[in-house]
């Protein structure tokens, strides 16, 4: 769908993205409420690959900071 932060993670990302969009369209939008086990497995491989880049570029730290500062789903409410 688009590139990955770490080029070497692209194959894993593409496999996961394709799995997700298929589940989203064929299952989730039709009422399915559980995640797909195959997609979950592909996601683990993808995020394992990505973690290196997030840590080495200092992004993990920035993300933790942002998560701490904004309650989930609360961005818009917080500002208003």
């Amino acid at each position: 769908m688009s590139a990955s932060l770490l080029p070497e993670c692209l194959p894993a990302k593409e496999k996961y993205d394709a799995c997700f969009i298929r589940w989203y369209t064929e299952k989730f939008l039709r009422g399915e409420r559980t995640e797909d086990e195959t997609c979950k497995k592909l996601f683990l491989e993808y995020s394992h690959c990505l973690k290196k880049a997030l840590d080495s570029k200092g992004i993990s730290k920035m993300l933790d900071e942002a998560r701490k500062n904004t309650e989930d789903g609360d961005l818009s409410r917080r500002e208003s």
Partner: protein
Amino acid sequence: MKVFESKCTFNYSWEEVSQANWRKYCAWNDKASHVVSVDTLSRSIDPATGILRTERLIACKQSVPRWLMVVVGGADVSYVRETSYVDPVAKTVRMESQNLTFNNLLSVFETVTYRPDPANPETKTIFEQDAQFKAAGGFSRFCNKIEDWSVERFGQNASLGREGFESVLRMSRQAWNDLREQGTSLPTMAAASAPSA
């Protein structure tokens, strides 16, 4: 604090829009060249509400004016954290984004929602976007300049974003129609996901 708002209607069903939204930055969109990469960080379904929550990291490359380049130290890639919520029952997509880089200089909070057009719920979808810009420094003239530049640039990206998303919607519908004719399942996105960088 400066605020940017925009609203438009897409002539596609909410289902089509919410699905194409995941492909917004794919190769079908040639209007989003400032987006370098999009990665999913986490994804879960709330068992009580059935709402799908996704956290993504988006890397953007933006040409920054020289007067601002001095301040950001020449870095041209910035990172954005996006959290989205898809409610399949209420039929809403809500996306919230915040910048992770340069936020000591400028904070940007963006909210985007997609919901069916009440007048044409089966065929049209309303898109609403709202962004707040807040420069962090104490030099008010400089902050104003940063805010003005950001709002202007955001507006340019927003209209390009609409154009680009229109082509993703068109291609998605085409792909679906082709499949329906063939009576097969969804293809993988491999053909359309060649990195554009």
